[in-house]
C-alpha cells in the first residue's frame, strides 16, 4: 500500500530526474559531438540554454489559443507525475497507483494529446504536420509497447511495473526466452519514443516531427525543452525499471537507496551512450517508410507472445 515514505520517495525521484534531465541531454550532445569529431558544447550547455530562454520574451502567434499556452506546463507536469510511478532506485513502484503499465502508457498519451494539439493551435503549417506525425508515431509504437509489457506482465502475474521488475530480477518468470524477446521489442519501441535518428531528431526544430516546437519561444520553449529531456530520461528509466532492475533496492533502506541510485545512474549513462552511438551511425528514415520498421517491433513482440504461450 502507499505510505508516506513511498510518496516522498516518488517525489524525490521525480525532482531528481527533473534536475538531471538537462545533464542527460547534454551527455547526448557531447557524445554526438565526439562522434562527429567536433569540439561541441559542454556537458552543462542545456542548463545554460534553459536559463537563458527563461529570461527571454514569450512570443505567440496571433491565432493561437489556450491549448498552445497550456501545453508546456501540461507536458512537464504529466512527465513529472509519470516519473513518480516508475521504479528507479527501488524494485517496487514508489507510488503504486500510478506505476501500472496501462496507466503509464495512457499518461504519456495525455502529454502527446496536448503536444500535437498545440501544433494545430499555433496555426503554422509546419507545426500542424509535426503534430500529425507525432500522433502517427504514437499509433505505430503504442501497440508494440503494450504487447511487450503485457507479455512480461503475464509472466509476472501483475501489471504493476515494480512487480514485473521484481519477478524478472528474482528470476520468477516462466519463460526466459519470452522475457528477453519482450525486453528487446520494448527497447525498440522505447528507442522510437526517444525521438532519435533514424526516426526523428528531437533537437532539430526544423524537423517536421518536432514541428510543434516551431512557434514556441522564451520561457515556454525552455519548459518544453526541459520536458522533452525529462521525457527521454523517464522513458529510459521505464525500460530499466522493468527489464533491467538489477542493483535497485528491494526494500526501503538508506544504503539500499544509495546503492540503487548509483546503479541507476550507471545504467542511464551506459544506455544513453549506446543510444548516442546508434543514432550517429544511421541516416534518417523517410517518414512514410517508418511502418515497415515498426512492423519489426510488432513482429518481435508477437514472437515474445508466442514464446510465452508455448512456455519455452
Amino acid at each position, binding site marked *: 500500500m502507499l505510505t508516506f515514505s513511498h510518496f516522498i520517495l516518488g517525489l524525490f525521484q521525480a525532482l531528481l530526474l527533473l534536475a538531471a534531465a538537462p545533464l542527460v541531454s547534454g551527455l547526448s550532445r557531447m557524445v554526438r559531438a565526439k562522434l562527429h569529431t567536433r569540439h561541441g558544447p559542454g556537458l552543462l550547455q542545456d542548463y545554460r540554454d534553459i536559463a537563458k530562454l527563461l529570461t527571454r*520574451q514569450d512570443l505567440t502567434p496571433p491565432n493561437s489559443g489556450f491549448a498552445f499556452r497550456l501545453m508546456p506546463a501540461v507536458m512537464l507536469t504529466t512527465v513529472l507525475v509519470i516519473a513518480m510511478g516508475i521504479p528507479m532506485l527501488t524494485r517496487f513502484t514508489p507510488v503504486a497507483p500510478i506505476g501500472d503499465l496501462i496507466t503509464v502508457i495512457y499518461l504519456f*498519451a495525455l502529454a502527446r*494529446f496536448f503536444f500535437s*494539439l498545440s501544433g*494545430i493551435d499555433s496555426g503554422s503549417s509546419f507545426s500542424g504536420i509535426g503534430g500529425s506525425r507525432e500522433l*502517427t508515431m504514437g499509433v505505430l509504437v503504442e501497440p508494440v509497447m503494450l504487447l511487450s509489457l503485457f507479455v512480461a506482465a503475464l509472466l509476472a502475474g501483475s501489471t504493476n511495473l515494480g512487480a514485473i521488475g521484481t519477478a524478472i530480477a528474482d528470476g520468477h518468470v516462466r519463460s526466459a526466452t519470452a522475457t528477453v524477446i519482450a525486453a528487446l521489442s520494448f527497447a525498440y519501441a522505447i528507442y522510437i519514443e526517444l525521438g532519435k535518428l533514424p526516426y526523428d531528431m528531437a533537437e532539430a526544430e526544423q524537423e517536421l516531427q518536432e514541428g510543434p516546437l516551431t512557434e514556441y519561444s522564451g520561457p515556454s520553449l525552455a519548459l518544453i525543452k526541459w520536458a522533452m529531456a525529462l521525457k527521454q530520461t523517464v522513458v529510459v528509466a521505464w525500460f530499466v525499471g522493468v527489464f533491467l532492475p538489477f542493483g535497485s533496492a528491494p526494500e526501503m533502506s538508506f544504503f539500499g537507496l544509495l546503492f540503487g541510485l548509483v546503479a541507476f545512474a550507471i545504467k542511464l549513462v551506459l544506455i544513453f551512450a549506446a543510444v548516442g552511438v546508434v543514432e550517429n551511425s544511421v541516416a534518417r528514415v523517410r517518414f512514410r517508410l517508418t511502418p515497415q520498421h515498426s512492423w519489426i517491433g510488432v513482429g518481435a513482440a508477437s514472437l515474445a507472445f508466442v514464446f510465452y*504461450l508455448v512456455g519455452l
Partner: protein
Amino acid sequence: MIPLSLLIMSLLLSCGGGILCLLLKRREGDIRLGGSGVGIAAALAGLGAGLTAIGAGQPAVLDAAGPYPFAHFVLRLDPLAGLMIAVISLLSLVAWIYGFAYVREYAGRGVGAMGFFMNAFIASMMLVVAADNAFWFLIFFEMMSLASYFLVIFDQDDEAVGAGFLYFLVAHGGSVLIMAAFFLMANQAGGFDFAAFRAHPLPAPLDSVAFLLAFIGFGAKAGMIPLHIWLPRAHPAAPSHASALMSGVMIKIGVFGIVKVGIDLLAASAGPAMLGWGLLVLAFGAVSSVLGVVYALAEHDIKKLLAYHSVENIGIILLGVGTGMIGMALHQPVLAVLGLMAGLYHLLNHAVFKGLLFLGAGSVIFRMHSKDMEEMGGLARNMPWTALSFLVGALAISAIPPLNGFVSEWYTYQALFAAALDGTPLVAFAAPIAAVLLALTGALAVMCFVKAYGIMFAGAPRSHHAEEAREAPAAMVAGMAVLAVACVALGLLAPLVAPVMGRIAAATIGAAPVTLAVGATLLPGDAQQATLSTPLIAILLIAMAFLPIGLKAAFAAKRGGDRKAAAPWAAGYLPDHHMPATAGSFAQPIRMFFAPLYTLRRAIAGRWTGITLGFERVVTLARRTEPLADRSVIAPIVGVVDAGGKRLQAIQGGDFRIYCLYIVAALIALLALAV
C-alpha cells in the same frame, strides 16, 4: 415498489409531454417551454427510478394482465435495467435542457412533432429495458425504432430520407432475427415471459442458434461492424440532441439485448457453448473498435466522425461483455464480474461523453450552419464554453487519465489480463490480442480527437462563419456543462462508482460481489494484479503543475512582457490561410498506412449498397404493379359503385314529405319482415 412507481410516473409524464407537444401545434414558444419542462420532470423521475432500482436488493416486478391473453404486461426493474434507465434518463434530461434552445433551429418545421417523437423515443427505450416479456419487449423495440426513424428523417432532405430508409431496413431486419430468437425460447418455455425463459433452458444446439440470432439482431442495433453501415448515416441526419440520444443511449440497447440474452436469459442453458459465444463477442468487439476509429479518422463531417466513434466504443463495451461471458463459461465468477463490470462502466461513460460531444458538435453547427470541419477553426476564441466542454469530452473519449473513459478502459484491460492469465489456451491466446487492438484503438482515438478539437476549435478561423460565430445560448451550454461535469466526476469518483457497477454486474450474473475499490484506490479484485487511483493522479497533476507555472512566474520580472504578434513561420513565405493543417492532411499518414482497411470499408459499403439497391428495385416494381392492380381490380369496383350511386340519386326528390313517406314505408316493410 418505489422504483416502479417512479418509472410509471416518468412514463406518464413522457406520454403527457408528447400529447402536449402535439396539442400546442403552432405555438412553438410554448412547446419549447412546456415540452422541455415536462421532459425534464420525466427525466428526473426516471433517474430516481433507475438509481433506486440499482440500490434495491430485490428486483421490483409489476405483473398486469394487459389486453392480450397470451402475454402478460410485465415490468421488471433489476439493477441492470436500473442502470439502463438511469443512463437513458440522464441523457434525456440533458437533451431536454439543451433542446430548449436548440430546437429554435427547427422553428416552423414542426417543433411539436419533434417533441412528440422525442417523448415517444425516450419512453419506449425505458419500456424496452424494463419489459420482462418477450412480446412486449418486441413491441417497445419496434416503437423505439419507429420513433427514432422519424427523428432521422426530420430534415426531409434526400440525405436524411436515404439514411432513414437504410436505418429502417437494418432495424427491422434486426428485429426479425431477435423475434426468431425469442420464438425459439418461447417454444421451449411455453410462454413469452422472460421468467419462463430463464426457468426452461434451451437444449444444446438450439441455445447457440438462439444466441447467434439475437447477437446479430441486437448487434445490428448496436452498430457493430459489419452491421454498422446505417449508423454513420442515420445518426448525423437527426437533430443533434436526438443524435446524442441515439448514439449515447439507443445503440446501448443493442448491447443491453446481447447481455440480456447471453448472460441473463440463456445463462442456465449455456454450457461449454458459452465460451464460444464469449470469444465471438470478443472478436466482434475488437474488430469494431479498431475499424470504427480508423474510419472515423478519415471523416470531415464532425457528426459522421462522432458516429464512427460510437462504432468504436460499442466495440470496447463488447470486449468487456465478451470477457464477462468467458468468465461465466470458465466458472470464474471474479473474471465474469470484472469483465461485465468493465463493459457496463464503459457503457455509462460512453453515453456521457458521446452525448457531450454530439451536443458540442450541435452547438457548433447551430452557429456555423455547416457540419464540415474544414470550414470551422479558431472557434475556441468565440465559443469558449463549448470549446472547453468539447475538450473534456475529447479527452474522456481518448481515455486520458484521470477522466472516466480511462477508468473503464483500464478495467477492460485488467479483465483481459485476468482472462489471459487464467483462461484456457484459446482464451490466453485471444485476450492479449484483444488488449493490443484496444491499445491501437486508444492511440488512434487520441489522434482523431486531437484532429476534431484542433480543426474545429484551435488555430485560425477557416471561414467567415467561423470568424463571426458567437457562444451557444445558455441552455445549450448548461446541457453540455452537466455532461462535462459528469465526465470528470465519473473519473475522479471512480472509487465510489466502480463498486456500484460491480454490484450490478454481480447481480446480473448471479455471482458474489468483487472488491473493486479500497479507499481511494481501484483494484481489479486483487491488489496484487494492479492498482489505480484517479483522485491521486488528479491531485498530483494539479500539484505538479505549480512547478512549471512557478518557474515561468519566477523569471517574469527579468523578461519583457509577452507578445502575441509574430505570424507563424512558413519557411520564408507569407503565411496564408491555406497553409495550416486541415482535417484531411492531419489524418493523411493514417490513411496512407491503413489503406487496406479503407478498401475494406468500400467493400462492406458496396455490399450494403447492393442490398439497398435490391430493395429499391422491389419498391420500384411495387410502384409499377400498383397502378396495374388499380386498373384491373379497384377501378371496376369504384366504377360500379359510382354508377349505382348515380341511379340511386333518382329517389332523392328533395321534398321533405317524400322522405317521411320512405321512413313509413321502411317501417312497414320491417314490421312485415318481423311478423
